[in-house]
């Protein structure tokens, strides 16, 4: 069992937790993920690691309540335990393997969307510790759901943008990146982490701007160790497993339409489970469709 040491609600539906998992805390690197299971009947849910403290033995996760499992996770309090918490899985960001001199010369721009902000934080913090301060565009639909602003500002040159213009640059992350580009900013690499649709549009833009772009894919997974192939996606015409070959890939080579389609595989079933978790039942009667 893996004890929850801290819980913080970052917005109305985004939660941060520190979990005691010393093996992961000791071996994690930015870019990697872990798999969590709430209880004995729960699904295995992959989450990107956002921070880790080897000394305290804790690992930080940030998640949004989007389905039945994350809704159940959000009900847990400090002192409660996850049934399972396994990792670190996947390959670390290849920035971690670059010679430091080369890394320090690189002009990097991170793009963080929504709950994808958390894994970007892990990378920015690691870079900051290596003496590299990267640019970062953090996007949110609106000011009230923006998360981790102070943390992000502490480890990067932060540019915030909101879709509704309530804070920072008026527009989505692509508008913000184009704006920085038009102002004369040039980057050797963009690293985009967020909803698939956001990463897809960022890749379309950076292809035009000719900036190599890395994305972090988060498809449906079961075991997370290469065993099941549920997370397979096409990258440059080849089948790759996000869990062992990724989760980070060359964004210009990822087949996004297919990857997005595959996310819909269990949509109906997930929706039903979410209702069950929230309302205790899915059959309220009266709709005429139940039997």
């Amino acid at each position, binding site marked *: 069992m893996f004890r929850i040491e801290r819980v913080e609600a970052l917005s109305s539906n985004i939660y941060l937790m520190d979990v005691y998992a010393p093996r992961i805390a000791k071996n994690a690197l930015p870019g990697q993920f872990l798999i969590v299971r709430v209880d004995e009947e729960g*699904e295995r849910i992959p989450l990107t690691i956002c921070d880790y403290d080897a000394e305290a033995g804790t690992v930080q996760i940030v998640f949004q309540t989007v389905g039945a499992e994350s809704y159940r996770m959000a009900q847990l309090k400090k002192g409660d335990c996850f049934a399972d918490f396994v990792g670190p899985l996947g390959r670390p960001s290849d920035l971690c393997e670059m010679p430091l001199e080369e890394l320090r010369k690189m002009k990097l721009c991170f793009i963080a969307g929504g709950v994808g902000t958390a894994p970007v934080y892990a990378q920015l913090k690691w870079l900051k510790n290596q003496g590299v301060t990267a640019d970062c565009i953090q996007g949110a639909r609106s000011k009230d759901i923006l998360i981790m602003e102070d943390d992000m500002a502490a480890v990067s040159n932060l540019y915030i943008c909101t879709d509704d213009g309530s804070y920072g640059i008026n527009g989505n992350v692509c508008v913000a990146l184009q704006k920085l580009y038009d102002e004369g900013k040039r980057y050797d690499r963009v690293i985009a982490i967020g909803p698939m649709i956001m990463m897809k549009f960022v890749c379309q833009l950076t292809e035009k701007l000719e900036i190599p772009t890395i994305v972090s894919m988060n498809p449906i997974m079961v075991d997370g160790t290469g065993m099941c192939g549920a997370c397979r996606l096409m990258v440059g015409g080849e089948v790759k497993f996000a869990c062992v070959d990724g989760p980070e890939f060359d964004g210009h080579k990822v087949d996004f339409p297919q990857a997005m389609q595959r996310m819909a595989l269990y949509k109906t079933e997930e929706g039903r489970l979410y209702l069950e978790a929230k309302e205790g039942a899915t059959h309220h009667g009266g709709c005429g469709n139940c039997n």
Partner: protein
Amino acid sequence: MAMDMMKKVPVREQDPQVRAHNFEEVCLGYNKEEAEAEALRCLNCKNPRCVQGCPVSIDIPGFINKVKESDVAGAYAVISESSALPAICGRVCPQESQCEGKCVRGIKGEPVSIGKLERYVADTAREMGIKPQGAAEKKGKKVAVIGSGPSGLTCAGDLAKMGYDVKIFEALHKAGGVLVYGIPEFRLPKSAVVQKEIENVQSLGVEIETDCVIGKSTTIDALMEEEGYDAVFVGSGAGLPKFMNIPGEQAMGVFSANEYLTRSNLMGAFSEKSRTPIMRAKKAVIVGGGNVAMDAARTALRLGAEVHIVYRRSEAELPARAEEVHHAKEEGIIFDLLTNPVEIHADEKGWVKGITCIRMELGEPDASGRRRPVEVPGSEFDIECDCVIMSLGTSPNPLISSTTKGLEINRRKCIIADEENGQTSKKGVFAGGDAVTGAATVILAMGAGKAAAKGIDEYLSKS
């Protein structure tokens, strides 16, 4: 009881029509009378060829004699000298090509039903609360076992009996490896059988740490250098699924058998209680002819599908156990033999809607000695379906070999280990099971785990 000594005492099974709709065990096993009647068929040969056919060399006539005498505890003690997992082996070993395949009775009639007798002894001993005996004296040396499948459990059990402190590291959240994620409930009950045999191994003093991926959560080098393990056994299995690389394989509704079975078996998705989803197909095509293909097919059937098995060779070459093929047919699974998939078709939303196959014929024998299937030109035809499950075999996971200094692998990514004692190219590290051989059987993995336990004992006794 009047009986034909040339024939096995028939074993009771769930009716095919009934079991096609449930996940309860197909075979119900012998009761006392049936087991003792079957035991009488054993000729108690002076040179028992059945023992030579057993990868872990169980004293088969020895335990059958005890069954004749109604001494189940004695029979269990005889089996336990060689096997830690008899309730499992009695159910999943390919007896027809091992012990029973060599039985003298089999020359003129049917061989003794050794597998069913082993199962009877293990199940009855469990019901009587009999546990295997642990070590009298501790050796004060630590061994790490990676993977809690058949080879790991066997190796760990044997080492614990010798007095070593053993800890198993398991990547998944439940111990058992392929016994838990791969083989379905209706063939090998999880809580009633697998869990109990794992508890038996634990009762010998073996510790199990789940949720620990060696190569990620820690490494073999760290286990030896930082956590004080004197030797390591790698029994990490062959977990990586193969695909065909044909067009349309990315469509929704195409799964590896590993994924489909893991969802159903490990995650319990067949049951209403589990929150892990699984596709309940209308018509499923399973590609492949091994035990895993049969398991996937019979799982899909139980989840409500019409099921076709598409296999490129003929019935004689089906690698699955005869009993599994027989059961699958009884349950109404359709075998499309000498048939090979060419392309999978998806609808506009990306869901599988059919598969194009081509007819095959058998040509000259290939490297495996089986006649090579050759395409019949122009014989393509379509099967309408909403689900395709690829069951083409698996290969070892490189997670361990790629993170362990000095551990050599061959070109098939299998760890190179001595067959006699499991020794690898790295000092103190032993390996066995599918991680070494590539996908094989439960009992061969157990045999390798046993050999490695002996090898580890010899190594640690010297140092």
